[in-house]
């Protein structure tokens, strides 16, 4: 596009391009395939069309037909209407799409849905409900650690994982522990207090 050619293919997304060869090359068998580990280990090629995928989300098994190129985030949001995880940077920078996979926080925008098969996925919806908030959610409300709230679900998930691993955390530990998420409205001041507070909750999160 910018190398002097004056014909554009329209898009600007480098990552989209990479995702494209990841799948397309498998189908054509032209290049050495960039494959998710799980599929390569099985020695099977899946796709490029829709394939059956089974995901364990918030304790429930969901059966879907997906193209292998679908990210976990898009599977959650576009196929299962689990819209708590947000698409913001779409490039593993901002953390708005954070979910737990086997208890660990991951950026679901950069994980293919098929890579999350056979793993325990927990989204923000699985951590609490408006009537039954977990300690992190309660503390976010108490300290008003949110404004527009678009980054909030990602922070809630990341903070819940942080609190589980860091009981009785100090504000300084929170500063160091939540570097993987970004907020635009500027709600960090409340978050520092909220997460430190939640880490002291009796009975854990």
């Amino acid at each position, binding site marked *: 596009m*910018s190398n002097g050619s004056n014909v554009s*293919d329209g898009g600007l997304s480098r990552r*989209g391009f990479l995702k494209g060869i990841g799948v397309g090359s498998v189908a054509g068998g032209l290049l050495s395939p960039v494959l998710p580990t799980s599929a390569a280990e099985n020695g099977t090629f899946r796709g490029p069309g829709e394939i059956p995928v089974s995901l364990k989300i918030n304790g429930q098994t969901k059966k879907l037909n997906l193209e292998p190129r679908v990210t976990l985030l898009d599977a959650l949001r*576009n196929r299962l209407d689990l819209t708590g995880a947000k698409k913001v940077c*779409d490039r593993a920078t901002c953390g708005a799409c954070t979910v737990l996979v086997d208890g660990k926080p991951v950026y679901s925008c950069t994980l293919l849905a098929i890579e999350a098969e056979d793993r325990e996925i927990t989204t923000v919806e699985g951590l609490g409900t408006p009537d039954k908030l977990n300690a992190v959610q309660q503390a976010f409300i108490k300290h008003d650690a949110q404004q527009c709230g*678009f980054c909030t679900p990602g922070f809630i998930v990341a903070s819940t994982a942080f609190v589980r691993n860091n009981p009785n955390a100090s504000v300084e530990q929170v500063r160091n522990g939540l570097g993987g998420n970004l907020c635009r*409205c500027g709600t*960090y001041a409340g978050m520092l207090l909220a997460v430190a507070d939640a880490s002291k909750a009796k009975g854990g999160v």
Partner: protein
Amino acid sequence: MPTANWPPAEKRSLIGKRIDRIDGPLKTTGTAKYSFDVNRPNMLWAKLVVSPFAKAEVVSIDLEPANSLRGVKATWKDDALLGKEVQYAGQIVAAVAAETEEIANEAIHRIKVEYKLSEHQVIDTNPELSKDKPSDRETGKVDEAFPQADVVVNGQYGLPVIAHCCLESHGQVTEVRDGELYVWPSTQNVSKYSDRLGESVDIPQNKIHVECQHMGGGFGSKFNFDKWGTIGALLSKQTGRPVKLLLDRDIELMIAGNRPSAYAKMKVGAKKDGTVTAVQAEVWGTGGTQGYNAPPIPYVFTKIPNTSLTGKGIRTNRGGQRAWRAPNHPQGCYITMSAFSDVAAALKMDELEFFLHNAQFTDRPEVYREELKIAADLIGYKQKAHLRGEGKADGPIKRGIGMSMHTWGGRGHPSECDVTINPDGSVETKIGTQDLGVGTRTALAIVIGETLGLPVEAIQVNIGKSEYPTSGGSGGSTTIGGISTSSRLAATDALNALLEVVSKKLNVEPDKLEASGGVIREIDKPDNKIAWKEACAMLGPNPITKRGQCVPGKAVTEHFIDANVGGVQMADVSVDTETGIVTVNEMVAVQDIGLVISLKTAESQVYGALIMGITYALFEECVYDAKTGRMLNPDMEFYRLAGIKDIGQLKVHLMTGKGYDERGVIGLGEPPVISPGAAIANAVANACGVRVPYLPLTPDRVIPVLLQQKGGIV
């Protein structure tokens, strides 16, 4: 009967108290549905093709390769562009709607657009590039004032174009059904969003339904439906299916909101005692392809007798400007306060003393002086202050303190609001406003609850639909003034109608009654009372609905709302002179803001403004490549936002109580975001002993200045 005037402090049970955000449980659980989250049955996903070139004639657009892809349901191209030139990289050229997001993404790469390149211009730092007629303004006579000054300080300062970077990108879900148009946009202007949206699809405005329950940030960039709104409507009409079209992050950062840059040559004259006598400013910058308004300089100190301001707009092939929190104020503030700080340094005068002294040239000297003193106390100025560059260094780390002052209008926008008291005792409000994250829902519940003597949980707040009574767009810090007045008037009228009914039962005139603590009672004989629910049951089958209206001029006269506030901020920073990294240790915001409705969310907004300010002071810049005309950092890794580790200790002090509350309600969205850049930059100058003239204060800007100070590369 109760009047609608704001209650005195001793009568307030909710107003001005720290009350939890009422939609907190929805937002923390992922239950809140943002426009980006709206999934309609049978919905298509749309993606845009944008120009990679900053200036080029569009020779042809071939949609066919996309149309032939399985799953593509509709394509669109901008025929008006054929034979014409795109004016900036990121300009929309074509679009695709497909069964899945993945197919839509694949399809846009198939669309072939042929361009004929032209010369572009994306540089905004050189005033010679301005081709527009400069704007000129002069008060007094600067030419006569400068020779009489004891000191004349020249300086050059600037801050680049930055983006809004709303976390929820711009866009909407659109559905054309039975001749009606349903839109779920991410907007800060629910009531007026659809003005003219229907033209492209031939649907009259009374058949357009707009809904935005939650939106992920606007900051001034989300008032209109924009090109993508039209494209969404067209694709939806063409396919007969709902279409989701939200901008991808790179496009969002290029075209959906740019804050104009500002660079300035400043000349400031002052007397030995610090009195500023003359300010001359030559300012330039870009608002993209559009025109340019020079920021207000001198800022805040508007009564300085001799001032002149020349503004030069540079048209660039970059995405167009949009209002960014407090349009033009952060620029005017940064340039003025930096230059003033440099004058104080040249005079070897304590900066606090200098600003206190020159507060005489502001509209509200007493307020600013009080705020300067409070801010100084909060940040420990006495213990930390030193003349520029004269602090003790801790190894390579130098520490400094700086300050800034700002102002904003506020007032309130026109607003209408319905409040309904139902016979079962429930209360609801309907108002066509929106909550940008500032706590609008909570503020409404507080005002109505206060008026009716009920807790916030008793008020069902309905906002975000164009069917509701019309309320203004959320811009210029006008929302809280508008909605607090209209809801207060509606709730008061509704209460008075209820009191009429109840007065017979309590055997007392309605004007001897009040609603408080969930009962209606006689003011002088509190035991003569009736519980809220019982009182409402007396209504029989008919609820009471009353409409309140905020007419801004009248609301000011009647002291519901006011305008013009002053604020002061101070920053304490450390500069690592080896790496050039600037760290904010502490920031203090002192803000005059009239009567505070929702204290907790108001404070959050000031904390947020400080953090947004730290972000543009230290990190943010839309970097453009002169050769290709493209933005080099249209992603969130290289378009940097502050993280939780970057903010230091923050303190917020709102000026409330006597002398402030009586003014009425004043908006808070803009003012506290104006000063951080200047306060931080002044603190850096105080630490280093030399001015780092351009924001953001990244190592590549700090280090060369430090090297120059040492007399070259060392």
